[in-house]
């Protein structure tokens, strides 16, 4: 088999691999009815943002979600460019009626943003995913209630 032939044979599986990697990098998870979460790990460039926005928007349409929790704990550097990309995702999601909650900002990131004069344009932020989820529940008028230890009680569990 010559080079050209073997390259053509490899192409479909390369495309598949690329698609898998892309999906792995942007796991948009439905954590609750109407609530999506997207943990971003690694750096964020233009190409990745585009893939991300596509995945996010499709998921919003699919699930009718109204809140997207964007977790940037795993993003090592948040500079002007990254902030711009994040804001693009926020704007796009908003146009589809979903509010974005940004979580996982470290103290260092916050200081960097302040230093760069970027205030993320009024995007709601929280330090952790858990806090973001709590806020998401509040926004949707949901409450988490402990189940009665005496045994199952009817109709007392919110959600």
């Amino acid at each position, binding site marked *: 088999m010559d080079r050209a032939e073997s390259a053509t044979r490899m192409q479909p599986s390369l495309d598949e691999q690329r698609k898998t990697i892309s999906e792995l990098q942007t796991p948009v998870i439905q954590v609750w009815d109407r609530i999506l979460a997207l943990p971003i790990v690694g750096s964020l460039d233009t190409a990745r943002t585009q893939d991300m926005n596509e995945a996010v928007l499709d998921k919003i349409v699919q699930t009718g979600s109204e809140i997207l929790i964007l977790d940037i704990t795993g993003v090592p550097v948040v500079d002007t460019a990254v902030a711009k990309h994040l804001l693009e995702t926020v704007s796009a999601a908003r*146009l589809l009626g979903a509010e974005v909650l940004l979580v996982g900002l470290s103290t260092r990131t916050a200081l960097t943003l302040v230093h760069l004069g970027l205030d993320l344009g009024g995007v709601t932020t929280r330090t952790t995913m858990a806090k973001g989820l709590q806020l998401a529940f509040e926004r949707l008028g949901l409450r988490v209630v402990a189940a009665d230890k005496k045994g199952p009680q009817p109709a007392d569990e919110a959600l």
Partner: protein
Amino acid sequence: MLIATVMEELHDQDALVFQDELMHMLEKTDSQGVLIDLSVVETLDSFLGRLLNDIAVGARLLGARTVVVGIQPAVAVTLVELGLQLKGVRTALDVEKGMALLAQTSRRS
């Protein structure tokens, strides 16, 4: 009073006519709320994008609570690329959610 408007794929002149008609309707009927449904619009160029922004903001300026619904992913991406945020205009995924949003804001005011 609500006006729900569905736009077919709009091209230049049609879009301008639409804008005109919408503004006049708003004025005439003194509507409190407008729902603009874009679910049929699949693509947007910069002209249409800016026009859409103007329509939405214009309706809001005429005092109508404006909700835009049905923006498709590809259209959203284009709007973001063009830097158009439909400022002050609420958005929702579909007509149902849009109506709920309009009802919500009217209850508050």
